[in-house]
């Protein structure tokens, strides 16, 4: 039994050192499934979430390692555009959070809220209509700060296609023409035997 306990100790140490908590996502999204086996890139990825009701959330990671603080840079640009100021502490906190979707004026409150449940309540959805196209600016500045970032869209299966199309149009306006749609994997084996008989 001693070797088993040794192994447990080893496994435990391994997991303790390699674990990284999954970032809390803004909303519960049930992706559709497809046969695609390609994997999403781990970093340099901009993700746009679309939930069942058509609310849109945005996320961008900090790059390959801790030396590039993309999120902070992007927030600085947004703050400049919308004439808002954030303290250094707020920039720091923002750099460590994950996906968000709310008008920029409410972002400060979101950053400063300590409790994650209260934070989730503030996630009302990113404005992206033509009068207040904040999502467009987030995408634009993300592309300026990190030109290598790829775009992933994580949409709920029951989301209206019109919202998805709007997001894709917004991305195409920013010269992004290649999208990664996040899906669950579902295997479908279709071979020659499945060909319908010739008529």
């Amino acid at each position: 039994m001693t070797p088993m306990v040794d192994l447990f100790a080893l496994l435990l140490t391994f997991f303790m050192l390699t674990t990284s908590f999954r970032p809390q996502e803004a909303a519960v999204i049930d992706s559709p499934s497809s046969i695609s086996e390609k994997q999403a890139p781990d970093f340099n990825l901009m993700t746009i979430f679309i939930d069942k009701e058509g609310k849109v959330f945005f996320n961008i990671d900090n790059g390959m390692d801790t030396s590039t603080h993309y999120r902070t840079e992007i927030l600085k640009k947004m703050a400049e555009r919308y004439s808002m100021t954030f303290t250094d502490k707020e920039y720091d906190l923002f750099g460590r959070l994950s996906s968000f979707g709310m008008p920029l004026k409410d972002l400060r409150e979101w950053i400063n809220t300590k409790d994650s449940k209260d934070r989730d309540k503030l996630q009302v959805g990113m404005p992206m209509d033509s009068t207040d196209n904040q999502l467009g600016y987030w995408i634009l500045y993300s592309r300026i700060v990190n030109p290598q970032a790829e775009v992933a869209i994580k949409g709920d299966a029951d989301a209206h296609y019109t919202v998805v199309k709007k997001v894709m149009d917004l991305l195409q306006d920013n010269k992004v023409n290649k999208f990664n749609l996040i899906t669950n994997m579902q295997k479908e084996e279709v071979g020659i035997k499945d060909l319908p008989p010739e008529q």
Partner: protein
Amino acid sequence: MAQIQTEEKAVKKGSKKKRAKKHPTEIDMTPMVDLMCLLITFFMLTTAFSKPKVMVITMPEKDNKEQKEQPKISEVRTLNILLSGKDEVFYYTGQAAPGKPMPRIVQSDFSKDGIRKMLLDRNRELFKKIAEYRDKRLTGQIVVADSTFDETIKEMKKEDQKGPIVLIKADTAARYKDIVNIIDEMAICNIASYAVVDIAQVEEMMLNAYKAGAPLTEFPRIVVKVQQ
């Protein structure tokens, strides 16, 4: 279970009390192992091991400035797939244009016998070619690297002249799931060329007429929506 034993202490000379002979103390390690099992399971579940899978789609460049002439494509090969509402898929062959007889809309679904059967039938040659190549690789008759395999399949699709050219159009009632499903079918059936385009007004009218039970037989009068 693993045991820890303590040595019996020798009776010291001169000590008043005479130490009774102690049983070697055993520490039961079972709770500790239980806790380790629990912690391992916890870490296994919270660790970000599974990376999400993606489906890559590429859209043509959106050109707002000028309405480019649609490139002429063979009408016989054109297959228009219309998505409207949850799990509803319709298709018609050819083009709906004034002066020509209206193409017939067929309703299908996403099951194996639905749209997939139709696509396999239309794309028979190319599908057979790619499936045979894939099987040869799986059984080991041909040995190629992954990148060569992908490149060859791309070439086969580019050279294909007989398969359908699919135009996927979705109206306002369509769900995201339907678009993902239809693009997935494109991949499953090895369709060489497909594109997601905007739905035309005449097609919306065709769908409405079909759903109302009276499919259109001739090109309808289009009311031009004026942008103000």
